[in-house]
Structure formats: C-alpha cells, structure tokens
C-alpha cells in the first residue's frame, strides 16, 4: 500500500501577463508529478524552463493559473514553514548572527527558549559551523552562508524542504564539496522530503532519487528518471548512471 504522497502537482499551468504590453507568457503547461515521503526529488532544466516558477508555486509564493498543488493533502495557498525554502542567494538576515538566523523559524513557531537552544546547537553541529555561530553573515564565506541557510530551513522540521539552486552561487570546487556535505547533513534528518531545483546534471545525478526533466518555454515535463543506487555515488563509474547521464545531456540539449 502506497502512503499518500507528500507533494502532488496536478495539471498545473502558469501564465504571466506582462504589464506593459499585455502579452502573456506561458511559463508552465500541464505539469503533473508527485513526490513521495522521504524522496529526494530533483527538478532539472535549463534556465528559463520555469523550474523557478514551479518552485514558487510549491512554496506558495505564487498561485497556479490552473491546476492544483497539494502538500500533505492540503492545498498550497501561501508560504509556510511547512515548506521551508533554501535560496540560491542564501537570503540570510544580515542583522542576525548565524545562530539567530537558524533560530528564526523556531521563534516564529513559538518554540520555547530552552528547546530552541538545543535545536539550534544541534544544527550548528550538523552543518559544521561550530565556532562561527556568533558571526554575522557579512563575516561568513559563501559556503558557510549556505550552510546557515540549510540549517535554518531544516531547523523548523518542515514537511518538505525546497531548495532553489542552493549551490548555484558557489564556485565549482566548493559546490562539489557542498554536495557531499548536503548528503551527509540529510542523513541526520530522518527521511526528509527534499525538492531541489537545479540546472546541473552532475548535481542531479549525485543527489537524486528521482530526476524530473523540464523543457523550456513553455515548461513541460519531458521525462522522469528514478535512480536507486545508494549514495554517495560514483557517477562516472556506474554504467546505469552513465546511461542516464548521456540521456540527460541529450534531453537538456534539445530542451533549451
């Protein structure tokens, strides 16, 4: 018996109307997919493919023009801590220290102070920021800021964690390291449902349980892949992964 999926996107379309000339742009057209509990779901697509739009719809920042998005059985109509987001630009509050940033969501949930301290301390450890908890974002490197962003989203223990190209602003080296870090951090979380949006094939192959390929203009579902190999993966060695890799490259090449 299949338990109810965590996230359901049903026949979602999104149209944007430009204010200046009343022209409309169809960002997404008839997109449908489901994400099961505990899955690491990656949406892969070139820029302009509407993957950010999907993310905004799921997070609740915007409403679909048609179709429905439900999380945990409930329709999504506004942002909520149940769908915590990790942003590409980290979006840390500059006037709060790393500690206070991570604590933010807990304060919003009225978690009592004693419990807050315990949770924040735990996550500082998990993301490896011990010793930096009292630094302001301006004093942290890009990679560290992203760790804070991840810790902040995880600390609220949401149903689903949404990540919008979280490693996009990092250099290649740091990015690769952070991908491994991310896997390690998520191991600490019992079966967290993660939705990650990226344009990096390598990232998708390294991290995903399911890869959904989105095509561009308008955004539609091209194909879905399921990877069962345990992580961390040797993406350059496993023949099955190599096959998927090649196909992904072709799809993406045609999609953009």
């Amino acid at each position, binding site marked *: 018996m299949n338990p109810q999926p965590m996230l359901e996107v049903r026949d979602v379309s999104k149209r944007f109307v430009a204010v200046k000339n009343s022209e409309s742009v169809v960002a997404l057209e008839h997109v449908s997919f489901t994400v099961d509990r505990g899955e690491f779901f990656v949406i892969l697509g070139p820029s302009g493919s509407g993957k950010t739009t999907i993310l905004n719809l799921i997070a609740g920042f915007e409403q679909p023009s048609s179709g429905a998005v439900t999380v945990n059985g409930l329709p999504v109509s506004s942002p909520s801590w149940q769908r915590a*987001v990790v*942003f590409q*630009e980290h*979006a840390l*509050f*500059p*006037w709060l220290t790393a500690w206070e940033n991570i604590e933010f969501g807990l304060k919003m*949930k009225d978690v009592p102070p004693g419990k807050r301290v315990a949770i924040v301390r735990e996550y500082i450890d998990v993301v490896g920021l011990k010793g930096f908890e009292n630094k302001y*974002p*301006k004093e942290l490197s890009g990679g560290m800021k992203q760790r804070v962003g991840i810790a902040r989203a995880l600390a609220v223990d949401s149903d689903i964690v949404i990540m919008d190209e979280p490693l996009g602003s990092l250099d290649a080296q740091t990015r690769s390291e952070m991908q491994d870090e991310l896997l390690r951090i998520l191991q600490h979380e019992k079966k967290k449902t993660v939705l990650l949006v990226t344009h990096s094939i390598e990232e998708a192959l390294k991290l995903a349980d399911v890869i959904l390929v989105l095509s561009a203009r308008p955004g539609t579902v091209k194909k879905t892949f399921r990877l069962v190999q345990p992580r961390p993966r040797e993406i350059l060695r496993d023949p099955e992964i190599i096959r998927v890799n090649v196909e992904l490259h072709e799809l993406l090449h045609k999609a953009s």
Partner: protein
Amino acid sequence: MTLLRRANAAGLLIVLLVLWEIFSRFALPALDTSAQLLLPPPSQGVRDAFNLAQQGVLWQHAAASAKRVYVGFLAAALIAIPLGIAMGLSRTLLRQLNPLVGVLRPIPPIAWIPITLLWFGVTDVQQYFIIFIGTLFPLLLNTIAGVHGLDPVLQRAALSLGARPKNLFALTLHAALPSIFVGVRTSLALGWFIIIASEMVSASTGLGFLIIEARTAMITERLYVGMFAIGMIGFLQDQLLVFLRDRLIPWA
C-alpha cells in the same frame, strides 16, 4: 597611517600656519597699522580661545547651539522616520506626498529664516524650526530609501520560515536601519551647518552669534575661534555617530 606618517603629512599645514603667523605678525603691520585686524595671526586666535574657554563663555555658546540643533533634529526625526517608513511601504502615500516634498525640499533652510522670524519672532522656537525644516528631508528620503532597499528575497525567506505580517514589519525596519543611520548622520551634520547661519541672523547666544558679534566688535581672531569650535564639534559629533553605528548596527 602611523603617527609619524601622520605628523609628516601635516608638514604643509604647519608650513602654512607658520607663514600665516609671520605674515600677519610682521608683514601686515608694516603695510598698514590696522591691517592686522583683517588677518590676525593664529596665535592670537589660540589665546582668545583659551580665554573664552576659561571664562566659560565658549562652552555656554556651544551648549546653546547644541541644544537648538538636537531639539530641532529630534522633532524632525519623530516625524521623518515614521513618515518615511509609511511612505516607503505605501506607494499611494509616496505618490501623493511627492509633489509637496519636491517643492519644499529644494528650498534652502536658510531661506526660511525671514518667514519664521515673522511667525515665531526671535525665539528659540524659531531656531528649532529652522533646524527641523533643514533636517527633515534628508532623514525622510534616507528612510524611504531604506525601506525600499529591502531585498524581496529576504521577505520570501521570512515567509517560508513562518513569519506573519507583524514579523515582516520588524524585518523591514531592521533592513532599513543602515540607511536611516546615514540619514541621521547627514542631517546632523547639516544641522550644525544651518544653525550657524541661523544664529548669525537672529540670535543672542550660540556659536553663530559669537562669530557675528566678533565681527561687529572687530575681534577678528574670535572669528577663527568660532569657526574652529564649530568645525571641531561637527567633527566630534560625526566620530561619535560612527562609533554609535558600529555599536548599534555592527552587521551592516
């Protein structure tokens, strides 16, 4: 810069001062007996400063000026900051008040002096008003800019962590603080500029008055004293503000 380097850099300044002293002390009297009244040597200025300081006169005048600046500034801040936040958040309010601000802002505060003298007479209130009108607009504009400068991503981040409308308001305020502080710094500096002119026209106390009185009484070196006292206070005030900023908003 190390102290020695600093001292070296003051070379030109020292040379100029010495030249001035010599020129004023020896060359001028040779040209004309009363020429020294036009450009007394700096040493005389220093002496006068000491006298005034000792008599307490200097401090009294400085305090009178300071009171006017800070009262006027406070009044402006009490209006400009809340109004600025409101105008920053509400497009409608901003557009409605924009023409009024656009017309009033370019008017130099000094130009308000005659009309305020008519309204308030030669009183401290008149001085407060001049400072008020002079500091209002920089504060207002910087506050609006601060509110507008809030990165929309931060708003989304807050919402995705469970923030409610009242939290968002606190968020906007926090993000606007650096800009508001710039407004405070600018307007306080401006306030000191303005008070001098205002006191020169219509006051019987204060550093501006000191300067104009010195001219009337032909105690020219006192002009230097007044000028430098004001400059020094302005400089110290700014340093204090920077110190406060590093304390209050270290994260900026």
